């Protein structure tokens, strides 16, 4: 094993330890905004010459013609474009560089073959309105992905339309609403645990429901006995995350499903934590009626700095008629088609047909694993428990039930010295890691939510554990060092308050600018 890190030599102000093994400072290029490099007459991309008579834009467009070029639009050369964005890229942390222990984000390896196949001529080039007989390849990809997701979730129907997890949730709730409406009463309320991610209540409101929060019981699970009283004929559904946002399996989920079903309500599962379940158990078997998946989490499609993703929704047969259009059907002789008209459909949630490029990547991931995908889940749970074992006692563990693919600590022990979870997270950056999720779930004050995923080797897990232990020591012996972290990054802590009070959201020519980044 080779360590690349040495004790980092930084400015005399900061007091670095020689325990920082993974990271070291390296030269970070200076780079301003692309507009600041712009100069009239420079060009980066040339078009082939025009091979038809040149139109007169003033004549052709009349009053709508823009006679001048766009003011301030960049004018730079190809080399400047390459250098600009390459330099910018070196300021980013990424999965390709190391672990991202963000809870419930499932930052796993993004396989490169996925990128290659998504870009193939014949896939990247296809127009959604081209004749369906010239799109059978695309449709077969959609069909196979649908089949795989049904097998993985234990559900009976699926839609690949939603563009991301949040849109998948909304689609799921609209399906529930349509189902209840068809039965004569849309109902009024959706029950949501207080540990849920903020998209859950937001989505419920947008779907036209009132939200009723359920407090978790002492182990962080849904309080099933309280639930019995809460499920009235007014309740349309319960939105559950399983494992919960604490990384703990909701053992009584089959009971929860029964309670809801007895009153005609449905069970929605937020599939964000599917990485703990794939190949081990199936939500459909547990009594879940409808769920969304995050292909950019469990199924390895890249986050790309914040998107794109995809949020397919899998469901039981009772919800199938309400699926958003278009709907993939198989006709005679295996011919596939997309149908745009379905009488009971909730309608269209997005133009065209799902984030096809993302769907291709997810299918490539599934095909690479095949039936052996269980191994990924096992490794993910193994890594989380390994880290938990080595950090128990160093950090406070508020809920002691077994962890699955993620573990939630709190900063209670470090708070005594005035060091909180945000400070610890920022110090972790100096050790060469991306922070874990801070301050979520809300039911754990000062939470540290850690999900390593299966993509981390034992070595990386050990480095992470060492880093966290070292920070805990620093929190006790040298709290200021932790509270003023990070020390080794290109920029220090940024003024978020100023950014929100006086937002500057674009570059302006000749505007007074703050000093260029040095």
């Amino acid at each position, binding site marked *: 094993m080779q360590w690349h890190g040495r004790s980092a030599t930084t400015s005399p102000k900061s007091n670095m330890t020689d325990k920082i093994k993974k990271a070291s400072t390296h030269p970070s290029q200076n780079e301003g905004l692309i507009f600041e490099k712009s100069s009239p007459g420079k060009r980066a991309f040339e078009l082939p010459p025009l091979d038809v008579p040149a139109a007169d834009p003033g004549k052709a467009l009349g009053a709508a013609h823009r006679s001048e070029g766009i003011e301030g639009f960049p004018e730079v050369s190809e080399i400047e474009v390459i250098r600009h964005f390459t330099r910018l890229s070196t300021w980013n942390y990424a999965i390709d560089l190391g672990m991202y222990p963000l809870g419930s984000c499932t930052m796993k390896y993004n396989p490169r073959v996925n990128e290659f196949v998504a870009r193939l001529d014949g896939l990247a080039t296809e127009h959604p309105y081209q004749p369906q007989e010239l799109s059978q390849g695309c449709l077969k990809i959609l069909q196979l992905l649908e089949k795989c997701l049904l097998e993985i979730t234990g559900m009976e129907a699926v839609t690949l339309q939603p563009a991301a997890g949040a849109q998948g949730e909304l689609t799921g709730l609209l399906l529930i609403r349509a189902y209840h409406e068809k039965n004569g009463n849309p109902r009024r309320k959706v029950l949501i645990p207080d540990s849920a991610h903020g998209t859950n209540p937001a989505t419920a409101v947008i779907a036209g429901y009132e939200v009723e929060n359920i407090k978790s019981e002492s182990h962080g699970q849904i309080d099933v006995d309280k639930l019995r009283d809460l499920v009235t004929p007014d309740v349309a559904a319960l939105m559950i995350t399983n494992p919960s946002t604490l990384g703990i399996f909701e053992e009584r989920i089959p009971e929860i499903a029964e309670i809801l079903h007895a009153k005609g309500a449905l069970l929605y599962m937020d599939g964000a934590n599917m990485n703990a379940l794939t190949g081990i158990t199936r939500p459909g078997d547990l009594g879940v009626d409808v769920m969304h998946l995050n292909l950019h989490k469990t199924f390895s499609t890249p986050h790309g700095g914040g998107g794109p993703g995809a949020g397919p929704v899998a469901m039981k047969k009772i919800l199938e008629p309400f699926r958003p259009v278009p709907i993939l059907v198989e006709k005679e002789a295996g011919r596939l088609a997309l149908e745009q008209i379905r009488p009971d459909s909730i309608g269209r949630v997005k133009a065209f047909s799902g984030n096809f490029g993302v769907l291709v990547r997810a299918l490539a991931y599934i095909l690479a694993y095949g039936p052996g995908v269980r191994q990924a889940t096992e490794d993910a749970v193994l890594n989380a428990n390994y880290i938990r074992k080595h950090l128990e006692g160093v950090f406070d563990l508020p809920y002691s039930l077994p962890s699955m693919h993620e573990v939630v600590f709190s900063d209670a022990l470090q708070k005594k010295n005035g060091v909180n979870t945000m400070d610890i997270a920022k110090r972790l950056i100096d050790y060469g890691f991306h922070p874990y999720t801070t301050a979520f779930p809300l039911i754990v*004050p000062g939470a540290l939510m850690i999900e390593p995923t299966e993509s981390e080797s034992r070595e990386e897990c050990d480095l992470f554990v060492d880093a966290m232990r070292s920070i805990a020591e620093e929190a006790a012996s040298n709290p200021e060092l932790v509270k003023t972290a990070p020390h080794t990054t290109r920029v220090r802590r940024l003024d*978020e*308050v100023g950014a*929100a*009070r006086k937002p500057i959201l674009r570059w302006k020519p000749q505007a007074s600018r703050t000093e260029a980044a040095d």
Partner: protein
Amino acid sequence: MAYPANYRYTKEHEWLDLEGDLALIGITDYAQHELGDVVFVELPKVGSKIEAGKTFGTVESVKAVSDIYAPASGEVVEANDVLHSTPEKINTDPHGAGWLIKVRLGNPSDLGGLMDSAAYELYIASESKEASA
């Protein structure tokens, strides 16, 4: 920070300072502390009516948005517009320069439901205990 003895307080952490039938209204030191650095305030227009117990605006920090509830009913005669450019006044002087609105009360004598400073201090003491439990 002391809680002015002549102010009245709500469970939602608003304060009210009565002079005749005009009331100055703001949020308490406890509230601004919970919110963090205030970045934005949304206030009602002069002339609009506010209703006791209902929201009349919001105070935003970087990480949270809080509704502000009217301690009493009345008509807004003045809004502290300087907060649009210097919202931080709510953090530095929540009981003074950080006031939000001035209201002509519909019923100046009907403030019985509000707490006095002693009761409010007891109230937030028990809230803090619960939060760290």
